[in-house]
């Protein structure tokens, strides 16, 4: 049995809007084993994206503990979190979020600029990542010259280029047509099975969620159904 790569314990997240407190996550606990591919499902406002942000260390819990890849990330400083993200997490956005003035190659290379790799080594890593996503022939294309599906594949290449153990995807197929969505899901599945990446994917789409090895449901900031059951187990 592999080690838990994510261990979330009794986290609460409360946002403040003026004087009003808006609880988003309410005492949620979750454990994800290394090599798992889980989908986070739930209605809008259920706290899926908030949970994903907490796992990525781009937001902090109001209470509770978030342990990811061996680090208690809720205690890291902003600088330490940035370095930790660069080493351990690849993030895939719904809207791809590529840098428009950079080519596909340069977009994928971006996280590697933070490493000590030589130019040659960076090139090798980038080309490997682009080959995995099937876009080795699009290195010089700018995002505007790519289709939505291709842009998302470049974004996935960017997420995996530094070889992180954890991939976090926030509705990666939400802005794609059915065919492109299918390609992206197949790619994610391949990254999970072939490259042993642990993947946490937020999605509204039950069809997409079925591709995951485990589905976790959230509602009003707490786990329901399978997710809660898995935790009890």
């Amino acid at each position: 049995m592999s080690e838990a790569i994510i261990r979330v314990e009794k986290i609460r997240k409360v946002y403040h809007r003026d004087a009003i407190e808006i609880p988003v996550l309410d005492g949620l606990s979750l454990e994800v084993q290394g090599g798992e591919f889980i989908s986070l499902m739930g209605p809008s406002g259920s706290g899926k994206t908030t949970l994903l942000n907490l796992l990525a260390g781009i937001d902090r819990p109001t209470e509770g503990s978030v342990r990811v890849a061996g680090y208690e990330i809720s205690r890291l400083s902003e600088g330490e979190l940035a370095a930790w993200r660069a080493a351990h997490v690849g993030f895939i956005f719904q809207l791809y979020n590529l840098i428009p003035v950079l080519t596909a190659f340069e977009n994928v290379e971006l996280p590697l600029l933070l490493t000590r790799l030589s130019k040659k080594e960076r090139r090798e890593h980038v080309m490997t990542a682009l080959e995995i996503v099937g876009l080795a022939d699009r290195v010089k294309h700018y995002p505007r010259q790519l289709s939505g599906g291709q842009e998302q594949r470049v974004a996935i290449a960017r997420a995996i280029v530094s070889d992180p153990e954890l991939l976090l995807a926030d509705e990666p197929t939400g802005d794609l047509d059915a065919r492109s969505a299918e390609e992206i899901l197949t790619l994610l599945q391949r990254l999970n099975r072939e490259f042993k990446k642990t993947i946490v994917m937020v999605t509204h789409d039950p069809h997409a969620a079925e591709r995951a090895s485990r589905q976790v449901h959230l509602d009003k900031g707490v786990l329901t159904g399978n997710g809660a059951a898995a935790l009890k187990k």
Partner: protein
Amino acid sequence: MKFLHLVWRNALRNKRRAVLTVVSISVAIVAISVLNSVLHSFSAAVEIADEARMVVRNQVSLIFPLPLAYRQRIAAMPGIKGVAAANWFGGVYRERKNFFAKFAVDAESYFPIYPEFGVKPKEFKAFMDDRKGCIVGRKIANLHDFKVGQTIPILGDIFPGDWEFNVRGIYDGLKPGTDETTMFFHWKYLDESMPVRRQGQVGFYIVQLEEPSMAASLVKTIDSEFENSADQTLTETEKAFQQGFVKMMGNIELLVRTIGSAVVFTLLLVAANTMAMAARERTTEIAIMKTLGFSGLGVAALLVAESVLLMFAGWAAGTAVSWLMCRAIETGFSAIFPVFPLKPETMALSFAVAIVTGVISGLFPAFHAIRTTIVGAMRQVA
């Protein structure tokens, strides 16, 4: 270095805005550079003034003459190596726009005191042999196409009348910064052409010292020698004399510095506005880069570097244009600005202004980048 490409791409993201910003910056750099060159032009004569030369003039004013008889008395003083008489002539060549400086000098004594005026021996001899001969600077000769042997008409004003001079030689400056826009002719020719009551009058004396260190004591010696005369003297080093000329034009330095400060302030506003717009448009990208692992300070440094890069481009373009303008001014307005140098210190000053302005104008977006939270920026997009 590996981030330079990223900085470059971001700087050119909005090409029109980048070009307009660089043009604005370069215009400001041209203004700073040319204004500074004006100062350097005025002070060029001061800078090349020889420590071993002094000027003796009438204590009342430069426009009052001194008697020719003073020459022998000054020359006889211990520590004096040479004395030459000189008069400012004024006058114009053909028409007023052709003005250039003209001095009637005691050539035999004057030129040995000014070895930086390089004249061919043959031409100098021809000049000495011709009572109406003159020697002109290379720039003036080129500007008016004066040739050796040519007779040039000069319309006198301080010394009225139609004067004619034969160009017998052309001098070249042998020292950097030497004025090549002056004409020298024989003081005797001027003196003999004057009515008797105006004869034997010298505008000022140039005195060459055996040792520059003797200047202070000789100033006192010379002035006290003529203390009880009808025409008292004011002796000063050539440098002080030239500084006096510059001061006569008013406090140009203050004016230039004031304009320069206004230009720098405007420059800062232009650059700061560009960078503020650039950063505001890129809030999402700042968040993405932070998500990828860039620290807040890292993203901030990239924004400051982008601002500095734009300023550097503006500085480079502005300096190139300034250099061309300085050459054009030196050629086209040589009578007013015999030398109009774009000095390395001016380039260093404008470079420092550009870089410091770049850093300052990059600070606001840098601060914005540090404060931008990933979640907040992403929520704005959603």
